């Protein structure tokens, strides 16, 4: 609830409601005495927004001045409304249109998804959240930097070592700035370091013998996989924030389209254009969805 109160949209909604109420009140009195009520809610708002900006409470003096400003704004605002100054004012139109847009965006986030929604979303999109492949492996690189036919040299060594213990085959191949033994390294990291093909090829290799050569961005590698972990589905709890963010994003997209489509139904859109400049086919094009 506390979070909700800090939400600017809620402020806007409540402020809007308050205005409506005030408007009703003013109209009821038939342009008699106008009343502006400063209540606890207003005070709380004023203080909270001060605090947010200055990281401290306002002094009595500051508070008084803030209230005076609010009252002035409110009075001018009321009078401006009476004079219809809001009509055809581009700033107001723009702001209101934007608020509608924000409203639809925020609706998606304001109605917090239920636990079931989140679980459903996870079920439907589980593939997006799989952990990458992970490997522990030894590699020997044969680099074109240092030899004419690195692939052949790699193959030659492979026939010699085959099932040899990796600890026995140290110091073969070429020296490059990455380790002989990659321990529990995931595919993303391998992709960063050696290129994506390399980790993709590792997926298809078996554990416990020298294989390859497979190609990286730097040369040909013989590899000896000690351990290979296939993609795992993460614990729901561990990716809760990510799921929430992504579900919100997806809802936001849907809602935005939905609301616009719904609202648009209420309107007829007509094009009154000079046919000399815009012929029928162009107008038809404009009407396309």
């Amino acid at each position, binding site marked *: 609830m506390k979070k909700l109160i800090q939400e600017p949209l809620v402020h806007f909604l409540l402020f809007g409601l308050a205005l409506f109420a005030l408007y009703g009140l003013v109209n009821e009195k038939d342009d008699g005495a106008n009343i502006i009520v400063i209540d606890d809610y207003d005070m709380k708002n004023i203080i909270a927004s001060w605090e947010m900006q200055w990281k401290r409470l306002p002094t009595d003096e500051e508070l008084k001045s803030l209230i005076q400003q609010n009252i002035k704004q409110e009075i001018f605002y009321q009078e401006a409304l009476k004079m219809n100054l809001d009509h055809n004012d581009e*700033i107001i139109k723009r702001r209101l*249109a*934007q608020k509608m847009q924000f409203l639809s965006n925020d609706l998606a986030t304001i109605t917090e998804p239920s636990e079931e929604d989140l679980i459903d979303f996870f079920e439907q999109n589980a593939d997006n959240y799989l952990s990458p492949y992970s490997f522990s492996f030894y590699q020997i690189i044969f680099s*074109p930097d240092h030899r004419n036919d690195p692939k052949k040299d790699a193959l030659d060594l492979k026939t010699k070592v085959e099932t040899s213990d990796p600890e026995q085959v140290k110091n073969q191949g070429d020296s490059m*700035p990455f380790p002989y033994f990659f321990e529990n390294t995931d595919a993303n990291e391998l992709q960063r370091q050696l290129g*994506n093909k*390399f980790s993709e090829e590792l997926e298809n290799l078996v554990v416990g013998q020298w294989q390859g050569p497979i190609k990286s*961005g730097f040369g040909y590698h013989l590899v000896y996989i000690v351990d290979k972990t296939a993609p795992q589905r993460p614990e729901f709890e561990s990716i809760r924030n990510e799921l929430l963010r992504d579900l919100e994003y997806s809802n936001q997209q849907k809602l935005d389209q939905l609301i616009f489509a719904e609202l648009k139904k209420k309107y007829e859109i007509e094009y009154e254009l000079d046919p000399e400049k815009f012929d029928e086919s162009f107008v038809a094009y404009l009407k396309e969805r």
Partner: protein
Amino acid sequence: MKKYQILIASLLIVPFLTIGQQVGEMTMDMKEGEKIHKKRGYSPYAGRYFPTQVFWGDTHLHTSNSLDARAFGTVLGPEEAYRLARGEEITATHGEKVKLSRPLDWLVVADHSDGMGAMNEIIKGDPNLMSDATVKDWHQRINQGGNEALMATMDVINSFALGKIPEVLIDEDFAQTVWDRYIKTAEKYNEPGRFTTIIGYEWTSTEDGNNLHRNVLYRDNGDLARQMLPYTTTESFNPEDLWQWMEQYETKTKGNVLALAHNGNLSNGIMFPVEVNPATGKPLDENYMKDRIKWEPLYEITQIKGDGEAHPLLSPNDEFADYENWEKGNLNLSTAKTDDMLQYEYAREALKNGLKMEAKFGTNPYKFGVVGSTDSHTSLATAEEDNFFGKHSGNEPSAHRSKGIVGEFEGNKIFDWELVASGYAGVWATENTREAIFDAMARKEVYATTGPRILVRFFGGWDFESGDAKNRLPAEIGYSKGVPMGGDLYSAPKGKSPTFLVGALKDPYGGNLDRIQIVKGWLDKSGKTHEKVYDVVWSDMDQRKADKDGKIPDVGNTVDVANATWSNTIGRAELISVWKDPDFDPKQSAFYYARVIEIPTPRWTAYDAKRFGVEMPKESPMTTTERAYTSPIWYTP
């Protein structure tokens, strides 16, 4: 013994001192520094606190929040920008699917603070709302699309450049709403350790069309960043006022910000002033110099609108200086370029002039490190030749890019083919967090590339020897015997010349490396600056011997332009060496930075020609030699 102590002091303590001096309090704190640079024990792995990894990112991406980006048609916002950068496949504005070859580690969505979010409104909102004649005109022309939209957008940019911004676009409440939402999104996508969203914006000073743009980056989270609205050019065009704003921000929030300028090449001679302050017309004073280096530890040296390292007219002896320079005029092309402007526009010249100014005033205002970034206005941080989505949504991939125009003013044009698919920023940080990345930037342990993720290490010290290049833990040696890129060397020990350990590993997806060079700039006794480019290590050194002028033969070219392919049969995957300055004079201040050059590869124009079956204009280059530039290491007597 005393000398030895001084040496140790200069190696171990000086790095912290300089960090503290140059960028005020916003740098890594002392404890962090001590951890990184502390003396090592026996075990090479125990207490390894120095940065072991480069984190790749873009300090400069625009989304639909940016007035001009939205005007050019971009519909994607920060959310999509983060999604693409962290490795997801998304749909670009024109419907093309796009994905990076591999994720970036961090991203700064840096939308223009002027009219942030407003253009969205102009285009989306009810056309009748445009009672402002100018805005209405823009709205209509932008919605017409095509060339008219382009022209209208140029008008939008011009109106900002001239400070004639319609009131409706600079409404503060509105700006706060947009800023709040921006921050909210950044917070949502910030995942320390996996993908970092650094909060930032661009202050787009373009008085009279001359580019003085700065990006402002925050070390802080949203709770601090939201306390002040981004600084805009409605308030001032003068960078000195921006620095004041930064000072105020830090005082008020106890947070940290830094700024980096970009596109000196479009400033028409005012990005790196030496004598006269362009804002006031008066001689530059010490305050300007101190503030500049306090707030601007970095410069964006390469990006889509041109590479800004060096210019052939300023560096006639540098055979690689003629690279993707944009030199037709200022940002809106309203004033054509003249040769005398160049000396105040390019990074290398500024680094040299900085030495001169330091000798005269005691402060070097241009002691900056360098990064590359895209400045893309598509929400897509693409900098790879084979995956280049253009400067703005008007030049996302299509056959049209062979003929398109980026900007035009009275017949002076810049064409789509001139766009540079550049660049990215490599950051040697201790971890992938806002704080660690910012701190690495503040201590300038960062470098620029024109797109490929070439790994570059660069250390300077007095005792590197050739055997150090064979060590498989170059960082270990580098940090223990010297300072990393962005660092300082002081007071040469008697009889010693500075030595540098420099190594580069190709991008696993990219072209092989042709060579590593070290660029030296220095100030002589008479107060004149000089520069020299040294080839340090290159492929096939036994065959490619220097000729009598010291020139190394070309590495060759394997590019098949028609098919947009090449083979890595020339060049090397890895180059590493130790280099000692052969022309060192301990009395002369100097800087050194490394430049790594790739073998020729297809330029994005070649991929376009192949994929769309179009012919590129004759003037358009079809191959490129991509490169990395490190931040310098400075020597001060």
